[in-house]
């Protein structure tokens, strides 16, 4: 069954016909070519597919595309202004928080949601907020440092 939905993605209004069994991940990658949204575990464990829905970080692999109707979706592709990275992206570069890069888009989205709230967090709180992301390369230390640097600014 197809459903017609209206939503905005990275500030642009879209109208699409989606399938009832389509996930937000499938819609963003397959229909809109937003391949910064990564398909990792497909069961909401790894966080690679994290996008922002009305400002909240969610796992797009276990979120129905139909639920995007009327909502504002943001992905990695919408963060930089031309060649200017957003503060979280820049901090990831500055602090060497990227190795293979597969977990990076999801982490950047969660960290962007945290940064935009403008609330200072303790190290433990930062760890907790990032706990829905798995990174198999970095050991997390540089990621933590990058996120803390953004939150301190």
């Amino acid at each position, binding site marked *: 069954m197809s459903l017609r939905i209206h939503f905005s993605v990275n500030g642009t209004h879209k109208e699409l016909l989606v399938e*009832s069994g389509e996930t937000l991940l499938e819609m963003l990658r397959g229909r809109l070519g937003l391949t910064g949204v990564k398909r990792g575990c497909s069961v909401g464990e790894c966080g690679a597919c994290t996008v922002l829905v009305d400002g909240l970080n969610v796992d797009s692999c276990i979120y*129905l595309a139909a639920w995007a109707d009327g909502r504002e979706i943001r992905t990695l592709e919408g963060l930089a202004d031309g060649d200017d990275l957003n503060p979280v992206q820049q901090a990831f570069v500055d602090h060497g928080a990227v190795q293979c890069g597969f977990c990076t888009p999801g982490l950047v989205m969660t960290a962007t949601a945290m940064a935009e709230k403008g609330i200072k967090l303790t190290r433990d709180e930062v760890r907790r907020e990032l706990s829905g992301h798995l990174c198999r390369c970095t050991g997390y230390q540089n990621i933590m440092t990058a996120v803390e640097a953004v939150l301190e600014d």
Partner: protein
Amino acid sequence: MLDICEYYEAESLNDAKRKLASSPSANIIAGGTDLIIRIRDGAMANASLIGIGRIEELKEISLCKNGDIHIGSMVTFRELEQNCTIKERVPYLGEAGGTMGGPQIRNVATIGGNLCNGAVSADAVAMLCCLNAVLVLESVNSTRSMLIQDFYLGPGQVDLMADEILTGITIREQDYLGYQGRYIKASQRKAMDIATLGCAVSVNCQEGTIRDLRIACTVAAPTPVRCSSAEKLAVGLKATSDNIMKIRDAALGDVTPRDSWRGSKAYRKQLVMINIQRALESLVLTDGGE
């Protein structure tokens, strides 16, 4: 693509009830963080779903005039944890919910979904059992309420009729006023893991004497259990280390855990004891543990 042949977005509670009554094979979907995974695993071929996530009246947490707290079934774990009424009156319930999944899951997963799945490890459930939470179940023709303990029939089985929707949870003032609580989740990872054993304690302790104690454990039996014999023993006791040891030992008679790959029966029994002890020590211990 998930094997979902039909999806209906309910516009109101009445709309959802009517649609459910007229679609015998349909399932309600809340946040979907469990259900979508079951569908992906092939457990529900040709699923027909009714979404209730946009029904505003199910998303509210309200403090009633009589002091009761009503939590709509579509309140997410994140909202539960951040809500002012919950923080002020039953902070330990928000904290218990805050151990579930990770942030992205808590932004979407709902308290109602957590209950209706009937998972033996559900993180909000142990504390709701201590709070004697009353569940409200509604269909086109009926409304009924029941204590949370009666809702659980077995692993993954709850007393929810095919045409019923869990609309909310009431926590009565008498069940939280004067109580402190703590939920201790034993799991192999601190985040993104399912409880090996969940232990919730709420206690009314005045001047060093336990007036009332409630202990509920999950993954300690086929359904969440209250440790009634330990609770009875505790009433009137001074909150001393010796008495806490007596209470935790008594709780062993109230649980029937099983062996699973997450933990053996013996290990789970140990977790029941040690986590009741730790929760009580942190809440009420008066003699400093000497």
